[in-house]
């Protein structure tokens, strides 16, 4: 008989609003405390100290509008956050500062999370939904210069972009973008040429989230239906469906592949977090704690594998922290 599913290691309370996004920053050296950033519906970004399990600071930069994406740029002192006030803010958090250094105004009103990719030291690319309905814009940060705008062919009827993932082969200079669209298809874009390399209809419903493993050239996407879709990218840069996995309950709001590419976690509308083996998508565990939709899941990047964590943020205002490394 299988072991009963574990309890969360800890539950962070006190955001007093639904949690939409989470991001770990545990890579620092010893005196640096590992932290977790959480963005919540009330527009605050909380910085959780993972030693004391308490909020160190709360950043308020989105005019009380929901924050739905938080990323660090390099260390934990540079932060990018995206909010429903149509702004993407760049924060300077060094030495206890809490200042917004710069911000980008998004003309898109959707809730597509932006995607960030470091292309060189101190240079990032950021993909975000553009003003026009179906377009994606790629900017270079911190200069904010536009790199390209990705327009689907006329008559493609993809709908709005729902989720984005910038990636590049290790050392490869060619950054690529994977975008999930409202009509359920995933498209691979070449940034330099600005054209779609491949398109794959994965879902009947809008793609809610996707993640991609560039080593295995394999990706996974979830939508509002009961299906997880795994697709692969062949040498001809063509996307093809590799496998689908049926779920009991519909609706996936977030998918994350663990940095070591061994397991995948999904955040479900059914209040549950599901853990799969990444290789064969073998179901490993169902983590049942939350009492409302889980909005996001995130893996920590701690140096010591034993201290790596999984965090999930939910509509029930709680962030559950799980230690699944020691158990899987």
């Amino acid at each position, binding site marked *: 008989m299988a072991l009963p599913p574990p*309890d*969360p290691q*800890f*539950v962070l*309370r*006190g955001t*007093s609003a639904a949690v939409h996004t989470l991001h770990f920053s545990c890579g620092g050296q010893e005196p640096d405390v590992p932290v977790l950033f959480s963005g919540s519906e009330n527009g605050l970004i909380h910085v959780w100290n993972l*030693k*004391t*399990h*308490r909020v160190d600071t709360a950043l308020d930069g989105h005019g009380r509008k929901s924050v739905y994406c938080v990323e660090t740029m390099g260390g934990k002192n540079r932060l990018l956050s995206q909010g429903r006030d149509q702004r993407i803010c760049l924060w300077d958090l060094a030495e206890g500062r809490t200042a917004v250094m710069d911000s980008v105004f998004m003309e898109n009103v959707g809730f597509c999370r932006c995607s960030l990719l470091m292309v060189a030291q101190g240079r990032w690319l950021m993909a975000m939904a553009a003003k026009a309905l179906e377009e994606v814009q790629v900017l270079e940060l911190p200069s904010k210069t536009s790199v390209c705008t990705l327009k689907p062919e006329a008559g493609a009827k993809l709908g709005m972009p729902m989720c984005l993932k910038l990636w590049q082969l290790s050392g490869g200079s060619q950054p690529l973008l994977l975008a999930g669209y409202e009509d359920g298809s995933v498209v691979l874009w070449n940034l330099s040429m600005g054209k779609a390399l491949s398109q794959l209809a994965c879902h009947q419903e809008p793609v809610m989230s996707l993640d991609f493993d560039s080593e295995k050239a394999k990706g996974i996407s979830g939508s509002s239906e009961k299906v997880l879709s795994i697709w692969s990218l062949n040498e001809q840069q063509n996307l093809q469906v590799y496998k689908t996995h049926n779920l009991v309950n519909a609706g996936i709001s977030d998918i994350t592949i663990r940095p070591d590419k061994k397991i995948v976690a999904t955040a479900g509308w059914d209040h549950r977090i599901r853990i799969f083996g990444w290789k064969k998508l073998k179901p490993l565990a169902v983590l049942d*704690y939350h*009492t409302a939709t889980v909005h996001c899941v995130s893996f920590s990047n701690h140096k010591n594998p034993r201290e790596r964590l999984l965090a999930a943020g939910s509509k029930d*205002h709680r962030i559950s922290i799980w230690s699944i490394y020691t158990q899987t």
Partner: protein
Amino acid sequence: MAVFDTPRDAFGALRPACVQLTRVQTAENVCRLAARLAAVSGPALQELQEYVLFPLRFALRAPGPRRERVVESAVRCITSVLAATAVRRPELLQELLSELCACLSPGPAAPAEDVKLAVIEALRTLLHSASGDVIVCLYQPRTLPLLGCAVSLLLRLAERERAKQLKVSALNCLQVLVLQCECQEHQPLGDDEAQRCGDLFASFLPGISISLSRVVTGDIKQGHKPAVAAIRLFYLIVGLVMADAQLARVPKSKEKLPEKQSRISELIIHRGPDWSKSTAENLSVLLSKMVEFSSVHPHWKVRLELVELVHHLLRNCSCSLASSFTHLLKALVGLVNDESSEVQSRCNEVLQGIAEQRIIAQSRALADVLSENLHSLATALPRLMSSQDDTGKVSTLSLLLGYLKLLGPKINVVLNSTSHLCRLSKALMQVLELDVTDVKIVEDRRWGCEGSLQPGAQKGRCQRKYFRFFTEEKVFQLLQQVCRVLGYYGNLYLLVDHFMGLYSESTMYRKQAAMVLNELIAGAAGVGVDVLQEREVSPSMDDLKGSITSILDEYTDQANWYLITSIDTEEVSHEQHPVHHAGLPARPGGMCSTILLPSPELHATTRTMNSNIWQMCIQLEGVGCFAAVLGMEFRLLLLTALYPVLEKAGDKTLLISEAALGTLADMSEACGYGSVRRLINDNSDYLVNGISLGLRQLAQQPRASRVLDTMLRHSDASLLPLVEDVIQDVLSTLDQCYNSQASTFLGVLHSLMSALVQWFGSSCSEEQQQQSTECQGRTSSPRPQAVTTRDMEQFFLNYIRQKQIAEGDVPDSEDEEADEAPPLAKPEPNNCETEAAAPLPSHAQLAKDVLGRCIHLLSDRSLHVRLKVLDVLELCVTVLHPHRNHLLPMAHRVWPALVTRLISDDPLAVLRAFKVLCTLAQKCGDFLKPRFSRDVLPKLTSSLLSQAPASARAGPVYTHTLAFKVQLAVLQGLGSLCEKLDMGRSDLNEVADACLIYLSAKQPRKLQEAAQSVFLHLMAVDPDWTWLLLTETCCPHGYEPPHTSLHPVKLGGMGRQRNELTDNVLLLLERLRQRESGAQEPPP
């Protein structure tokens, strides 16, 4: 006094006397010379020294039988001459020495004691009068026989003589002879001289040491002085001959002496390694004897001298005499606790000195000796602890402590040896064994919620423990010190590891190991540890934290933290589930006290439970101690430590909960929170996390709820947002398991609601008061001050109108109920409007949620649960009552279940339900009126009526029955109910009818009083009607109509015989009259 200053004058004066003495050796002549001498000045005498001495020496040497008086006086005279002069010729010194010694020589005609004393004095003076270079000449190999003779004579005296003084002076003299005099005249010996003397004295060492040891161990009656002198001499001579410094310089081979002294050279000893080894062995035997004897010598000066002995030898001969230190150190360490403070302080000084000079640290041999001692003591410790009396135990343990302290940083050498560590730890385990037979500890329970924290009431002091092998507190303190010293010097990781091993090895050792671990950590941090020398490196905060974290993890591990400490493990609901404890022969309540012959099995369980309780306490104390050690650093550990401690603070066993509260106090102090309240408040997020996770597992639910309970009790309203969060968890968990865990959760809900009442009670009661004053205003204001005819007319008109209505002029009586509610809710219209718009405050929302659950549970199968629900219900109503819009619908929903409780349930439940009803009526007002009069009142009155005969007949025991209590409660509550609900006339009639019979003098006193109270309330509702009712029963006087046109008043009670009701009715009428006092007359 000196008359003759020049040698010439002096010579003139002395010559006759000298000549005379030379001719005839009599005492008189000697005396004459002595008299003359007195008049001669020192310098002059110096010139004539030998001249004067000649006749005297002649007198001593005179042939023929010795005449004691002559000898004595001559010796005294010599002494006086020598005292005034200095001996400048080595030959003279030697001659005098041998002549004087000759006087002492034993033989058939041994001299009298006085003579001996005089001779010894003379010897001493002689040695002192010899100037530095002269005296050095005495200590040459060729004078060895002479010296030997003197030494042996003196020793003989010291050993054989009876007179105390003689012994002492012989010893003192000997001390001078071996150049160890303490007077200032002698210059200290140079290194070479000392070396030479050492060589010489080595020849005497065996004789001297044996004799002296005999003196020391001789008859106690000889007094302390000889013993002291002997000990001193012993260590001086041994310290000289066996000095490490000297032995180190001894050449490999023996020096060749000139040919003619070959015989003497045989006497000279070569202090080579072989010699020193064998001598050390011999000395060791002697020393052990001496130490053994003098360490228990009744006189403290002897013991003090012993300390000096150890000190001196340790300083000078730590290598050469290493083997003797077993005894010496034992003596020294043992004397730390001497009864004499002088000895104690000196002993401490010496120990301190030893430690400071790092004698032990530098000498492997000594460390070995000490560790050997330690080992054997540790081996013997358990036996000693069980056989010795308390003082013996104290001394044994102080010995142990002393060894450890002396070892200081060298402890690690000992600890690294497995056998040593095992011995020591096992000894500690056995000695620290607790006495776990006390039944009371298991029995003592914490009841109710009085365990709340009085600020600063209890500092985390340890509970008094009872040990199997000792009772004295001092013994425990010593053991504590032993552990702390270990922790202070020892390798923390090694020790913690070892004792953790013991901790998990066997339940036998678990308590002791935990105790030791606690003390180790305290010691490692240097808390309350008393040592002789500072350690070189103190462990870093990280080391401490590492060790503490691992211990803490072990302590709070499920297997070690959740122990069975009582039979009624979690629940009080055992009444309903006796099945759970089917294996146990008795109910917990009467478990130990009422059973006369406890079965062996039960006995064993009591024992284990007691043991578990102690283990819990020790672990909790440990947590407190760790907090104290880490200080603010402990804040990080609160994440894991606070929840388990709080769990225990809610434990039903008194001892555990007390210990946990103490730990909480310690923690709050260590972490810089002013109070436990703040500790809990500031860390409530950790607790809530633990609770919410605990609630997820069925087995942990009771504990989680207990923590919540404790948390609620010890915190304040600021906690509400978090509490709200977790209560939602509780409620959802409750929803999943109404059957099994209801009782547990009701406990939590109860404490939640009491907390809410407490936190928000002021706001509730304010409004309540406001309401009640309003209420009073309403009832009292329309009452006119005086009755006029117009009023009377109005009264009748009203009456007729009312009567018509009552007879059915109002078409639909059923609508009345619905119609009534809105106008009655009007008194606070503003309140209602704002409330409808504004969301319910969170505490009220909580109360509402809880109330919702209560409705379901009201009809639970278990009486216990029902009773609890009723309690919670009452509190919910109290919290919710300022929000009528929410309360009334809830009241409506509660009603059917409540009615069932009131009319068809166990009397206990009825009692409780009635209380709830009263509260509800108070809060809801006449919203309940129709329901009450329809559903409940008939049942109540009928039960009152049916019970009345029973209570009237009953004896005094009746007042202890449940039936009585129900009657009483109903009667006490009914009055105010009627008033609060503003009951209608017919209901009032019903009430009055039921209560009237309780006014009977036959009823128990209390019931009569309660019934009176009902009528007093009725008076408040409708005084006139009450008056009429009462006078129908009994009317003391008649009433004249004010006008002839009116009929004479005819009342039912007029002219009745005095009966059982009369007294009470008259009393009530009197109260009514007072109430309606003033100008107002009773209505016609």
